[in-house]
């Protein structure tokens, strides 16, 4: 018997003919379930509360790890950061573009959250902070007036120097002396702006009073190491089954276990890869696999083999144990196996 083979059309009376019917109070059962669930969640809520680790701000980042902040800001200005080289939907680069066989959906979709890392994260916020700061005004004028090659030289030298940076008692970042042009002043002001909390506000600015889009702030925050290090300490990174974990000792999105699992195994986490799947396109490959699996789950009733497993594996005999026992006790002369 196939488990999707339809019985000839029959009304419910016919369908249930011969089946022992018992009194059943649907609403009473629902009410008991609702009360039971409520009691459980109230008790657990009182006993365990719920996770709420405070958010990171750019201000707290700049205070806790000023070198990482300045290094990130410099990479944004130099165009070497993760976002600056990302690609769609942020810009026309290709650093984070993933393809699978002939599939290139990221490029096909194009840029929809346009982000100019140097301008949005560094130059524009600094420009808005020039009031009463002639030194910063001069630095920006010098930087913007310099050739691209000159800007790159300054930024490369400054980036290399950041490897030997020291943090002063006032939280400022000092680097060995060198030819950094206006970059030293610009980064000093960036750090001051961030430590004051001003950069948090400026990255939300979109010429509107009300703000609900945190794309720029989160992209900038995500480019640094600080956020990732905090996440790793809480076992939240991708290679730590992070997608299904929660901060603290709370259950997370456990239902994402299968999605998360693929990130832990080859070829998804392999540099060499297999059949075009590797760590270079893990996200797209995992999404593709999960789409296929979801489709299979959806279409189980129509897939031979998959739909027959419940008949082969006798778990149903456990589910309807009493019913089958009842049938064995009282066989009917006019019944037929389907």
């Amino acid at each position: 018997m196939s488990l999707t083979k339809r019985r000839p059309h029959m009304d419910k009376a016919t369908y249930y003919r011969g089946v022992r019917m018992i009194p059943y109070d649907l609403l009473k059962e629902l009410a008991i379930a609702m009360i039971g669930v409520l009691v459980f969640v109230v008790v657990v809520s009182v006993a365990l509360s719920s996770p709420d680790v405070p958010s990171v701000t750019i201000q707290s980042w700049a205070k806790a790890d000023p070198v990482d902040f300045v290094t990130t800001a410099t990479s944004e200005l130099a165009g070497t950061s993760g976002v600056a080289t990302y690609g769609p939907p942020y810009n026309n680069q290709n650093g984070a573009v993933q393809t699978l066989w002939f599939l290139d959906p990221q490029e096909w979709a194009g840029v929809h959250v346009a982000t100019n890392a140097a301008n949005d994260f560094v130059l524009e916020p600094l420009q808005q902070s020039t009031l009463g700061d002639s030194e910063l005004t001069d630095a920006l004028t010098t930087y913007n007036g310099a050739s691209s090659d000159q800007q790159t030289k300054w930024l490369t030298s400054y980036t290399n120097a950041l490897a030997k940076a020291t943090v002063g008692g006032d939280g400022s970042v000092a680097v060995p002396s060198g030819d950094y042009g206006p970059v030293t002043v610009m980064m000093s002001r960036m750090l001051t702006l961030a430590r004051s909390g001003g950069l948090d506000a400026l990255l939300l600015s979109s010429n509107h009073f009300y703000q609900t889009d945190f794309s720029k702030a989160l992209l900038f925050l995500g480019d640094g190491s600080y956020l990732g290090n905090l996440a790793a300490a809480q076992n939240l990174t991708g290679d730590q089954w992070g997608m299904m974990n929660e901060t603290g000792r709370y259950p997370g999105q456990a239902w994402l276990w299968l999605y998360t699992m693929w990130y832990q195994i080859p070829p998804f986490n392999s540099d060499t890869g297999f059949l075009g799947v590797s760590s270079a396109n893990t996200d797209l490959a995992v999404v593709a696999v999960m789409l296929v699996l979801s489709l299979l789950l959806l279409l189980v009733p129509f897939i031979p083999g998959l739909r027959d497993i419940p008949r082969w594996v006798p778990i149903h005999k456990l589910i309807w144990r009493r019913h089958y026992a009842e049938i064995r006790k009282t066989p009917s002369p006019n019944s037929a196996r389907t």
Partner: protein
Amino acid sequence: MTSDAVTPSADATSQASTPASEPGWTAAVRRRVEKTLPITELLPTRQPAYIGSWVYAFGVITIAALFWVVLSGVVLAFFGSAWWHISSVGKFFNSIHFWSVQMFFIFMVLHLWGQYWGAGWRDGRATTWMIGVVIFLVSVVTAFTGYLIQQNFASQWIAVNAKDGINSTGFGGLFNVLNFGQQYGLHVMLFPIGVTLLVVLHIIQVRSRGVVRPIGDPVVVDDSGAGA
């Protein structure tokens, strides 16, 4: 089959009361509703004895958990997205929401496995199974948007981490996990309505078709030969 139970439920024999001769769209819809889901089937007082199995409790517990998820969510939405971070009462309601969601998923997955091992799609119930799977998938996305709008460290990290997955599919511009306003609207409005409507549809399907018979259950061949 048992010897004392050859008579089907009175619930299952309901007939439409709107005359077939009565014209109009309203009458047609009423006839369809009366035929598909009469009140005796929507709220049955008798059911097959084989539903006396623990597996049948999972679905109703899932619905119960969903009720508390929605109710606690309404309270949280009413007081604003930042309320639960600064109010102990708000934190309590957030905890109710959080643990109700956990219960909802645990019992939804148990229900799904129960229906799989019982092959609940048999006898014309494939669409009931499919709607159930869609509910599960939409619920996963709904919960994901909930994690994105917590306004705490977890939501920051999940957004930053998840953007690459969404972006890789080309939907990063349409479904921007970094855009709190978009995710908030989806989580408190669109997805809950979607899940609730799908659950209502799922329940209507279950109630209108009745609970599927156990695998290999003998079906009585009636006089007209309609039984299989």
